[in-house]
Structures are given as structure tokens and as C-alpha cells.
């Protein structure tokens, strides 16, 4: 039996990172946050933007976390130290968005950005999710389980247990998780797909994922 998910580690304190951190604190998780700066540099930021979350060094945050969330700019992924992620459940919320952030050679191709990140973080049990939802919707659209207007979040990853645990996290912070399968399925909800930015419930998401999978097969 795997121990319950209690501690969420978030790398990045931008718009997405702080929104996820607030939802996680609200859902009762122990939340730790790290950026590329020393913890003291984000203390004030966390005190005001995410009351209840703790700042720490990245290595300590990763070590303590049951789930690590990558919420840094994708262009900085290679600043992460792969050995720290061995065996860790990692949620990649980052997007490759060339029209906005510029083209990066290794992400130009059919594979999703998460597949490239998984290759880099070899030992991580990586799950792609949250990528298709706008950052402010992570808070504004969150609803309790069973709410008729609850939105769905797709997730994809190669480790079934990691997917199950991340699905539990998604549910607890206010969304219906929809398991899309292996990490390659994450291509179906990348930028420039119909799912990206769309507002879908669970059934609609299941259907949209299926349609995308069929059309790209």
C-alpha cells in the first residue's frame, strides 16, 4: 500500500505555481514551494499570495513531496537536476507555446513537451496535466465533487499508479480527473488542440480525448 499523498511540492511561484499552491493549501495539503532563488527571496510572496505554504530549497521540496509539480517556464526545464526526481511522482503542467514564448528546437516535433521532459527526468514517474486550463481557471473553475458544473482535467503518464495518485489530487482540489492513458496521449491536449483552453465536463472531455486520439491515429 502506497502512503497517502500529503505533501505537495511546487517548483515555480509564477501565476500557475501560486494558483495551484493556493488550491492545494485550501484542500488541506502540506504545501512547499521552491524557485531558482533562495527561499528567503520568496518568503514575502508566499506569505501574501499563498498563506500556509512554506518556501524551501528545491532539493528539500522535492525530497519532502509526495507529488512534485513542475510550474516553471518550460524553457528552464534543463535547470532541474534529474537525479533529485528518481522515483518521484511529478506533474508537468508546463506547455510548449512557441507563438508566445519562442521556438525551442527540442520541442519542435510531434511529441508533447512532457515526453521531452520525461526523457530528461529519466527516473521520474511523470504525469502531464493542467496544461490545457488557463491559470486563473484553476481557482475560479474549481468545484466540489459531484457539482453539476464541475470541469474536467485530462491527465497522461506512463506509470499507472502515478496517474491514480495524481487523479486523486486533481479531484481533491476541485476537478474531475480524466485518465487519457500513456504519456504520448498527452499530445491530445497540447496547445493548438480543440481541448486546449476549452471548458469541458467529464463526459465531454472523455469524448474529446477519444476524438483527438482517433483523428491523430
Amino acid at each position: 500500500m502506497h502512503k497517502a499523498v500529503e505533501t505537495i511540492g511546487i517548483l515555480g511561484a509564477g501565476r500557475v505555481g501560486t494558483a495551484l499552491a493556493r488550491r492545494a493549501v485550501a484542500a488541506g495539503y502540506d504545501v512547499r514551494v521552491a524557485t531558482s532563488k533562495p527561499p528567503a527571496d520568496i518568503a514575502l510572496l508566499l506569505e501574501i499570495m499563498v498563506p500556509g505554504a512554506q518556501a524551501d530549497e528545491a532539493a528539500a521540496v522535492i525530497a519532502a513531496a509526495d507529488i512534485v509539480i513542475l510550474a516553471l517556464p518550460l524553457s528552464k526545464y534543463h535547470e532541474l537536476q534529474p537525479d533529485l526526481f528518481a522515483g518521484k511522482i511529478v506533474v508537468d503542467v508546463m506547455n510548449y507555446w512557441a507563438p508566445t514564448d519562442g521556438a525551442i528546437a527540442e520541442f519542435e516535433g510531434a511529441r508533447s513537451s512532457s515526453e521531452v521532459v520525461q526523457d530528461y527526468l529519466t527516473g521520474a514517474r511523470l504525469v502531464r496535466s493542467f496544461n490545457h486550463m488557463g491559470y486563473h481557471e484553476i481557482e475560479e473553475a474549481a468545484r466540489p465533487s459531484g457539482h453539476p458544473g464541475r470541469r474536467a482535467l485530462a491527465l497522461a503518464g506512463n506509470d499507472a499508479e502515478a496517474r491514480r495518485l495524481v487523479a486523486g489530487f486533481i479531484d481533491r482540489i476541485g476537478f474531475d480527473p480524466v485518465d487519457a492513458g500513456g504519456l504520448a496521449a498527452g499530445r491530445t491536449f497540447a496547445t493548438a488542440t480543440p481541448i486546449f483552453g476549452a471548458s469541458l465536463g467529464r463526459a465531454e472531455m472523455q469524448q474529446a480525448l477519444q476524438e483527438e486520439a482517433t483523428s491523430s491515429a
Partner: protein
Amino acid sequence: MELGIYSFGDVQRDPGTGKLGSTAEATRNLLEAIKLADEVGLDFFGIGEHHTREMPASAATVVLGAAASATKTIRLGSAVTVLSTDDPVRVYQQFATLDALSNGRAEITAGRGSSTESFPLFGHSLNDYDDLFAEKLELLLKINESETVTWKGKHRPALNEALVVPRPESGSLPIWLATGGNPQSSVRAGLLGLPISYAIIGGQAARFAPLAELYRRAAAQAKIPEAQVKISVASPGFVGDDATKAKEQFWVHWHAVMESIGKIRGFSPPPRHHYDMEASGAGALFVGAPEEIAQRIVTLHGQLGHMRQFFQMDVGHLPQKDFLRSIELLGTRVKPLVDAELGKKLAA
């Protein structure tokens, strides 16, 4: 509370033929809008930097320079200057010239901006974005401090006691830092003692309240004088005589611009119910009749304590006559209501 307008020089569509007007005509329309905004008592007009066929406002200071001699009191600025792809020396010279011609009404707002055409246009890489912005902001602030500048960086040739003129008669130019809500930008503006301009273009406007607090706390930590701590808000908006008609009309144009941006950036345009939610209550789209808009500005003021709010109205080929009417209503109807309401609060 100051109220104003910002524009990217939207090209209008001829309602008769359906054809897009010329980019030159859009530029002249912009000048007409600034003159009216001044006449109806608005406080600020900002021009953004875009380089597209639909939004051709690529040279803000030229238009603002023309506006300087055709207006009396309105403050004239950028919204925003894409500093990362410009030369801070040139930016400063242009706005200091504008400041001279307008008798001290020029302002610079530096930021990332919402589009990225200027990167390939001027030979910069988007991958250097953070670096470029930090370095160029540092230089711009240095130039604002003294007329001779000694400076060295990575992205521009070094300056050795270089003279940068003309100089603003008041001593320096207001330089705002624009941000779309990254908390670290609020910290940066606070620590540097720069006024901050929030672009609130979607979602619930009040989510910026903690950011405003973060900005103020960072400024307090750096012992920045109170007078330097200022917040402005830029958001989409449209004022019409009738609330229902205004919301209906702006939907068409807002949807058109979201659709065209979505095509470039790979997202589906938000559906009507999403718009309806954001164009009322506490949403980011300030669309409606004058009373409703005034009330919403006052409510947001209670949450953010901003001293200026300015609106982007001409999007998705909004006809010029409707743009002008909306400016007129903002100045003649919304502004007095906001002043009266905030005056009451102040007196209470």
C-alpha cells in the same frame, strides 16, 4: 481616480463593403480618439506596440507627438513599450521629446506586451526574454536618473558618460512596470519603487487584490516613499448608452479579436457564456452602461486601491463612431459618477 483609454490602433472595417480600412486610416483614427478623450476630460491615453495588419500601432511616440499639440491636459503614454526589443536610449529620447512637446504629460509603461512580433522584426530571440527585459529596464531607469550615463550590459553596446537628451523639465519621466499578474513582477516593481500597471484582461478582476498587497508590501520593505507607490489597471471595456446593446455589440468585436489571436496562439475563442460572465459582476471586461461601469470601477477600487483605470475599446474592428461614443460616455458620464462615489467615500 484617473480614467483613460488604451489602444493598439485597431483597423476598422467598412460596415458597407465589409472591407478592412487602411493601416494609415487607423493611425489617423487613433489621433482623433485621443483628441476626443482630452476634450471629454479623460486623464490618460496609452498606445500599445503591435506590428500587425489589424493592429498597426508600431510607433506610439509619433502619434502621441501629434496628439501633444492637439490636446491640453490628457497624459500621453505607451501601453506598453515592448522594452525587450527596443533600445532604452532611443525609447527615452522619444518619450523625453514627447514630454517636452506636451509640457510634461509623457509617461512610459514598460512590459512584455501581449504579442511577440517585435522579436523577429528587430532580431531578438524570445528565449532571451527575461534577460533582455531585466537589462533594458535597468538601463532605462539609469537614464531617467541622470543625463550622462555610464553602463555596461550583454545586449547593447556599453555607454561611457554618454549624454542622453532632451531631459524632462520635471526631472524624470514616470516609468511604469506592466504585468499580467506574475507575483514576482509585483515584487520587482515594489522593490524598485516603480508604479505598477496591471493588465487584467480575463477572469475575475479581484484576483489581483493580493498582488496589489504584495506590491505595496515589497515597496514598504524597500522603504519606497508613499508617493511613488501607484497602481493602475488596464482592461478591456466598452461603454454604450444601453447596457444590453453595449454587451451585445462588444461581444461581436471581442469574439473576433479572440478568434484571430486564438488562431495564431492555438486556443479556441471563449464561448458566449464565458463572455457574459466576464462582462458583468466582478469580471475583467468592463462592458455596459455608464452607471454599471462606474459602479464596477468603484468596487474594484475598493479591492485594489488603484489610482487609474484605462480601457481597451477598439478591438475586432469596432467602428470608429462607436469607439468615439464610448470614449465620450467614459468621460462625460462614467467619470463624474466615479468621482462622486469615491469623493463620498473619502468624505465619510
